[in-house]
């Protein structure tokens, strides 16, 4: 694990000298700022932080962070980050990616990094569109959505990122609105603390090609009534006046009103993000009203590098080889005189 920094940073320390080139009003600015604010809180040394991205508007992110970074090729950031982390487990490695970068061309690396549970943090900017290429539908675009490549409406049903991730054995999954820097910052810090692959889906508005795709949930006015912000150990309560809650009815989650027909806060489900069995987390991920945000799943499991290091230590302990010469001159050699 990365050693903590003596020096106290401010967000300024993480700003690079590059002009930020996203469209005015793009949620990407919010994510950038939240990250720059979260990092000083994490107590990690600047030189130990690495941002690796693929290609897309979202993937321009590393250029704007004054840390180590790689703006790699489309979809491959999870693979690259895996190598970086295995090479040096002391680094805090972040994959910054878009819905297309991670789930279209990068889909295979995305599911495998989650399966392996290596200690990386993945931030997915989900704007349900290909932004950089100027507006084609993505694997999260809705059926019927009209885009440059679907002028008559999209015919491909979307993935639900959280559903796919949990199907791929994700141990940590969080979801947050792109216009909510406060909670986003908190979640980034939680993701960093979590040992294992953490995935954060940001509902990111693309003002140019998919403007308003989340307003029904994220608009300041409706937000509190349409979203539930989940916290481990806390009851699943939401609503402007905190009077709505979730209960289980068979295998369905139901919204009830506290105070109405005898419902009290005790009847409301309490969120257990740390539960190993993902059933409830999957139900929450699929919930449409209210939309679940916050850390939905955070199950502690052994990481790939922990398993690898353990094996390596064990093998080293039982091996007679310390230098390659030991190997080269071992076993079936013979002398020519």
């Amino acid at each position, binding site marked *: 694990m990365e050693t903590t920094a003596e020096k106290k940073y401010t967000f300024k320390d993480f700003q690079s000298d590059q002009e930020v080139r996203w469209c005015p009003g793009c949620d990407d600015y919010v994510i950038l700022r939240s990250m720059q604010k979260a990092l000083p809180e994490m107590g990690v040394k600047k030189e*130990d932080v690495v941002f690796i991205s693929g290609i897309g508007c979202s993937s321009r992110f590393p250029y704007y962070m004054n840390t180590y970074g790689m703006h*790699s090729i489309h979809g491959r950031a999870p*693979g690259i980050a895996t190598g970086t982390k*295995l*090479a040096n487990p002391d680094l805090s490695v972040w994959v910054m990616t878009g819905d297309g970068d991670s789930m279209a061309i990068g889909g295979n*690396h995305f599911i495998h990094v989650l399966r392996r549970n290596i200690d990386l943090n993945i931030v997915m900017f989900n704007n349900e569109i290909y932004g950089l290429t100027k507006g084609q539908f993505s694997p999260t675009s809705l059926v019927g959505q009209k885009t440059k490549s679907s002028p008559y409406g999209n015919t491909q049903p979307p993935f639900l990122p959280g559903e796919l991730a949990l199907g791929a054995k994700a141990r940590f999954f969080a979801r947050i609105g792109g216009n909510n820097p406060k909670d986003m910052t908190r979640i980034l810090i939680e993701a960093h603390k979590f040992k294992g692959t953490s995935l954060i889906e940001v509902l990111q508005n693309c003002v140019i090609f998919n403007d308003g795709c989340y307003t029904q949930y994220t608009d300041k006015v409706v937000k509190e009534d349409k979203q539930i912000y989940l916290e481990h150990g806390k009851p699943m309560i939401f609503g402007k006046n905190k009077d709505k809650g979730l209960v289980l009815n068979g295998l369905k989650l139901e919204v009830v009103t506290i105070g109405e027909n005898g419902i009290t806060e005790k009847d409301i489900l309490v969120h257990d993000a740390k539960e190993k069995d993902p059933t409830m987390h999957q139900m929450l991920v699929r919930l449409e009203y209210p939309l679940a945000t916050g850390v939905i799943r955070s199950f502690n499991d052994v990481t790939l590098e922990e398993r690898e290091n353990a094996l390596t230590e064990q*093998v080293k302990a039982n091996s007679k080889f310390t230098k390659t010469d030991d190997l*080269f*001159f071992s076993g079936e050699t013979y002398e*020519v005189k």
Partner: protein
Amino acid sequence: MITTKNNGPVEVLEGVVIRFVGDSGDGMQLTGTQFSDTSAMFGNDIATFPNYPAEIRAPQGSLYGVSGFQVHIGSVEVSTPGDDLDLLVAMNPAGLKTNLHAVKPGHTIIVDTDSFTKKNLEKAKYESNPLEDGSLDNYSVIEVAMTSLTKEALKDVVGLDNKSITRSKNMFALGMVYWMYHREKDYTIDFFNKKFKNKPLIIEANTKVLNAGYFFAETLELIPNSYTISPAKMEKGTYRIIMGNAATAWGLLAAAEKSGLELFLGSYPITPATDILHELVKHKHFGVKAFQAEDEIAGISSAIGASFAGDLAVTTTSGPGLALKGEALGLAMMIELPLVVVNVQRGGPSTGLPTKTEQSDLLQAMYGRNGESPVVVIAASTPANCFNYAFEAAKLALEHMTPVILLTDGYIANGSAPWKVISVKDMPEIKTNKVTEYSENWHPYDRHEDTLARDWAVPGTPGFEHRVGGLEKDSITGNVSYVPENHEKMTHLRAEKIKRVQNYIPNLKTEFATEGDLLVVGWGGTYGSLHSAVKQFNEDGNKKVGLAHFNYINPLPKNTEEVLRKFKKIIVCELNSGQFVNVLKMNFKNLDIYQHNKVQGLPFANSELIDQFKQLVK
């Protein structure tokens, strides 16, 4: 190939070529390995080549289920597993059918008559029994009821199951061959004792059968067409028999230790490259991180990530996998990180002939990426020097901050030969470009004057925080730059950086002649075949012919043109339709170049090469 003083069958030979063939289950690989190891111990030079069926376990007795192992032992330098056979040991009809063509007329064939049953003959698609229909008349056939004799030999070993009994008949064959070529049995018996430590019964059985075969040959006084092969005059030292893929893996281990870096392998299994992965996963004791990825792209991606973080990063694959790695390789080239890409070539195109050898990925290695993206390309030429060129690939990658493609092929990767073990301390130094102490106005794309390599500032090092990426970047700051002149400048810098590697690689040497009528040119895994063919051609008293064999392909050695111009004619021999010949044509005007190409998934045969040479020098 056989380098007889003349072709008479009963001369003392400098070498013999023996092939053991049988069912996948008959243990031919083991038998062959034992014979070659024993011979090596005895001091012979050897070269071996296994030949597995493509299927995992083909039905017993079927033609495509035949497994073979060829050994070439010599008292003089041996450079190939050989072409024509002095001795064929066939454990069943299918083995005889599929290998007879390789036996030199008049030479010896040993068969297990017990296996020539009606059923097996049918499976081998024989109308009549070749042992009876006279079709073997011009060979000296030694018919032995090996299965029965094996059973006999073991009849009073109590508690031995039938399977184990029949399975040990290969040792009967080995015993016979040991006697015929005056080999010691001890090495193999030691081997039994080690291998089956906890199975005393099996040790006893195998030993008994080996002896039985040996004494059987003795009593029958079986004499092959050749006598003992005296030890080869080989350089003094400690040797071991090594396969090409293992040598590649070990070369990388050595490079990691020498450069003081940790070794990272990101790979996805693919024939015939997988054995490198198999070898490296064993070496966790050296801290090797061998990561089996979900596909080839993730394999190279993880290696790029590891290189970014400061490891000696490697990815291994074969043709189709290299095709998939092209885009990512372009990224590694663009961000100028050290990376070793090992491509063990196989029969192409597409899935092609996965278990066969070929040299048809050379132009893919040169150009299989978008845009102008030059990388270093080198090739190993023998099973043993896979060690050296794997080491060299790592050295060049690290010292020049560039991807390096190492080309080997199924022939040398699966072939084995004696390797004079070298201690890591005797290997050349490797100086990485890592930086640790930050000083003002350092830039990610500042370059070293001599190599044009940039610094390797890895995450975790304070002060050097910087961003790299696949977009064109400013020639100094590394920031994204769309400036036209900068793009041209960077394109030239990337090319020049590779060109400069010329200053760090050895000059091209010719063998047998430095000037004359004909220069034979080859590259990579064909060295053994070309060397022995040119050697024989010259010995047969023909006009002097030189051999120039390339291990460095991009860039070419500095003196290449000079060497080539010393000869009137040039013939480029390749196991493809002509790829390296095109590289030469691109680089050098007005050469009188001929070419000989073979695309059969097989190595060159001595005879075919010599015929080619003859046509060019009358």
